[in-house]
C-alpha cells in the first residue's frame, strides 16, 4: 500500500498552470526522482507537498488521508532539504540546529546528543560555533540535511540534495539515502542533475512545463526510449526544445 500519494495536483498562478495535473504514489522505502528543467514546476510541487503553498486543485494523501485534515501531523513526520540553502546566517551551525530541533519540540538532552553526533559525522564539529554566513554552500547543505534527519522523519523531501557537496560527501549521502530507504523511509528527490538521479533513484518522474511526461523505472524508460542513459531518455522526451538554436542565439548576442 502506498504511504504517500499525490492526486491530480495542480497549481495555477493568475490562471496559468505551473503544475498541471500531477499524480504519483510512493511506497515505504521507495526513492522517487522528480526531474525536469528549470521552471518545470519541481519546486512548486515540493512547496505544495510541504504545505507552503495551497494547491489550486487536487489532493496530497498521507497514509490514505488528505494532509489538509491534519497538516500538523504530516509536517511532524516530514524532513525537508530546500533547493537554496536559505538559513539564518547570523546563527552558528549548532545554534541553527538547536533552533530547528526546538521548533519541532525536541527536549534539550536528546537535541544536544543529536546535534553533536550529526556535526561530528558531517565533519562540521570544529566549525560548530562559526556563523553560517562563513560556511561554504556544501557546509550549509550538510547542516540542512542534519536538520531534516534530526527528528527521524518518515518522508524525506530533498530538493537538489547534492548541490554544493564535495565528492566524498556526495558518495556518503547516496549511501545514507540508500540506507534510509532500506529502513522504510520514503524519499522524494528533486533535481535537474540527471547523473545524480540515475545513481540515486530506481524510479523517476519526468516533468515538463508542469505536466508529467513519464513515470517509470529508469531501466524501463531506457529500454522503451532506446537510450543508454537517463540524460538520453530526458532529451528524447524534451527534444522540441531547440538547444542548438538557443546556443547560437546567445553567442550572436555576445559578439554583437
Amino acid at each position, binding site marked *: 500500500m502506498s504511504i504517500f500519494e499525490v492526486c491530480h495536483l495542480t497549481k495555477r498562478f493568475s490562471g496559468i498552470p505551473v503544475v498541471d495535473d500531477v499524480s504519483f504514489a510512493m511506497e515505504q522505502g521507495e526513492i522517487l526522482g522528480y526531474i525536469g528543467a528549470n521552471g518545470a514546476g519541481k519546486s512548486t510541487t515540493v512547496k505544495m507537498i510541504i504545505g507552503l503553498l495551497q494547491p489550486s486543485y487536487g489532493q496530497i494523501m498521507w497514509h490514505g488521508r*488528505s494532509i489538509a485534515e491534519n497538516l500538523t501531523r504530516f509536517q511532524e513526520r516530514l524532513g525537508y532539504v530546500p533547493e537554496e540553502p536559505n538559513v539564518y546566517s547570523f546563527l552558528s551551525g549548532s545554534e541553527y540546529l538547536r533552533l530547528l530541533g526546538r*521548533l519541532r519540540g525536541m527536549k534539550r538532552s536528546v537535541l544536544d546528543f543529536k546535534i553533536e553526533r550529526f556535526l561530528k559525522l558531517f565533519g562540521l564539529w570544529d566549525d560548530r560555533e562559526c556563523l553560517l554566513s*562563513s560556511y561554504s554552500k556544501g557546509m550549509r547543505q550538510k547542516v540542512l540535511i542534519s536538520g531534516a534527519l534530526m527528528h527521524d522523519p518518515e518522508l524525506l523531501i530533498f530538493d537538489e540534495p547534492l548541490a554544493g557537496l564535495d565528492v566524498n560527501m556526495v558518495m556518503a549521502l547516496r549511501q545514507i539515502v540508500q540506507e534510509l530507504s532500506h529502513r522504510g523511509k520514503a524519499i522524494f528527490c528533486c533535481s535537474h542533475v540527471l547523473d545524480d538521479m540515475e545513481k540515486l533513484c530506481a524510479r523517476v518522474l519526468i516533468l515538463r512545463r508542469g505536466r508529467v511526461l513519464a513515470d517509470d523505472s529508469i531501466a524501463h524508460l531506457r529500454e522503451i526510449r532506446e537510450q543508454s542513459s537517463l540524460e538520453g531518455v530526458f532529451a528524447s522526451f524534451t527534444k522540441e526544445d531547440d538547444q542548438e538554436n538557443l546556443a547560437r542565439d546567445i553567442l550572436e548576442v555576445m559578439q554583437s
Partner: protein
Amino acid sequence: MNWLKRTHGTQFELARHFFASLFENEMFSREQGLRLAASVVGLAIPAGMLLIDPRIVDAPQEQLRVIAVADELSLLTFLFAITGILAVLAWHSLFPTRGDYLALASLPIRPQQIVGARFLSVALMATVVAIALALWPSAISPHSYGTQAASYSVLFADIFARALSTSLGCLFVFFAVVAIHGLVTNLFPGRWGARVTPYLQGGLLIFFVMAGLYSFVIQGWQQNVLQQLADRGRWAPPVWFSSLHNLIMGGWQPTVVPMAIRGLEALGLVVLFSAATYLLALLRYQQLLVENRDTSVHTRSWRWNPIELIIGNPRQQAIIEFIWKVFGRSRMHRVVLLGHFGAGVAVMTGAILVAYTTKTWPGWRHMLPPAISSVPIGVSFVMLTGVRYSFLLPVQLRANWIFQLTESQGRHQWLSALEHFVILFVIFPVHFLPFLVAVPVLGWRIATCMVILQVLVSCCMFELLFNDWQQLPFACSYVPAKSQLATVIAWWVFVLGFLGPILGKIILATSRMSLGYVIGIGIVVTLWRWLHTLRQDGWGETNLVYEDRDDVVPNLGIAEAAYAITRYCESDLVQRSSKSGQTIDVQTAVPQTRTDNSSLLRH
C-alpha cells in the same frame, strides 16, 4: 539632463551609484525612502514655523538684537541636530563596506577608486544637505530681525552670510560624524566594530535629539545669558558659526573673530581628519574588511541556560532565543531599538529639563519624584513601539521557511514566547532601574506601589500595541512608511508630552494614598484583564502572516471578509471531499482572495 544620462568614467559612475544609495538600507528601497523624505519635509516646514519667535512683533530695537542672536543660535543648533541625525542615518554608507569590495571584485575597479568614490559621494551629500537645510531659514531670517530697514544690498549680503555660515556649520557636523565613523572603523575593525557601532549610533542619536530639543530653550535666552557666551560657549559649534556670520557681515569685535576662526579651523580639521581615515581605511582595507573575518560566536562555558530555567517549553525557548540572537547580532535591529530607546530617553529627559530650566531650578529633591513617575511610562511606550517596529523588520526573509514548515505545531507557543519576551526583557528592565532610584527618594512602600501600577500601565500598552499582532518577529516581509509620519509623531507627542506626565502624576499621587491605591489598582487591573482577554481571543489560532501588503487604498475590510468566507468555504469543501472521497477543484469552486489579515476570522 542628457549629460547625466550618459555613461561616464568609472569614478563618476561609482560615485553616482554610491550617492544615490547613501540613505538606502535593508529597511527602505529608494522609492520608499523618497516617500519618507517627502513626509519629513512636509512636517519640517510647519515645524520650522515654531522657530519664528513671536516676540519680534512688538519688541523694541534693543530687545530685537537679543532676540535675533538667541534665535540664530537656536536655529543653528536645530539645523545642526537635523544634520547630525541625517549623518547618523547614513552611517552604514559613509565608508566602503566589505560588500562593496566583494560586489565589485570581478570588475576592473581598483580599491582606491571605491574609496575615492565613497568619499566623493559623502562630500557631495554633505554639501547638498548643508545647502538644503541652510537656504530656507537664511532667506527668511533677515526679514524678521530688522534688516528690512536696510538696503537691498545689505539684505542680500545678510542672506548670503547666514546661508554660508549655516552651510559651513552643517558641513562641520556632517563631517564630524564621518570622522567619528572613520575613527571607529580604523580602531575597532571586524567584530568589535560591529559591537561598538550600534551603541555609538544610539549615543549620537540621543545627543542630537537632545540638542534639537535644547534649541527651543536657547530661543528664550536673555541678555545676561548671551553676555556669558564668549566665556561659556567658546566650545559650542553654534557660537562659532554665528560668529562667522557676524564676521562676514563686518563685525570685527574681539569676541567674534577668534570664535569664527575656531569654527573654520574645526571644519578644516574634521574634513582633513575624515579624509585621513578614508586614506587609512584604503591602506588597510585588505586587513579591515576582506581578511578580517572572525566569524565564531561567543560560547558559554556553562551548560545551563537562564531562558530554560524560566521557560520549559522548547518551542517557546526557540522563539525567545531567536529574538534574543537577532537583537544581539543584527546591527539594523539593534540600531532601531537603541534609536527608540535613545529618542525616548532624550525626549522625556529633554522635556523635563526644558520645563524646569525655563523656571527656577527646584533642585534634584523636587525634580526626581515627577521624573521617576513619568519617565518610565514614556520610555516603556517608546520601547514597546520600538520592539514592535523591530519585530516587523524581517531578517533573511527567505530563511523563514523553517517557521512556515513548523508553524502548525507551535503557533500558540510562539506567540506566548513573544509575550514573555516583551514582559521579561522590555517591560521589566524599563521599570526595574527607575525602581532602584525611587526607593531612596520615595521609600520602599510608595516606590513598590508606584512601580506595580507603572508595570500594569505598561502591560496595558503592550495589549493595545500587540492587539492585532499576527506574525512571528522578523519573519514577515515589510512595507515601510505605511503609517503617516504625522500620525506617528502625533502619538508620540500625545503619549510623551501629555499622557505620560499626567499618568505619572496620578500614579504618584495614588501610591501615596491607601484607599485611593486600592481603587486605582482595581481599575488598572480590570482594564488590563479586559485588554488581555481581547487580545487573547483567537491569539495563535489562525495562520501567521508572512507577507506584508502595501494597501495604499483603504479597502473597507471587503477583502478580509471575502478571504474569511473563502477560507470557510475551502475548509467546508475539504471536509465534504474527504467524506465523499472525491477531489474538488477549490480554484473553480471558491474565488481565491488572498489577504492574510485573519482578525475577522477570529471573531
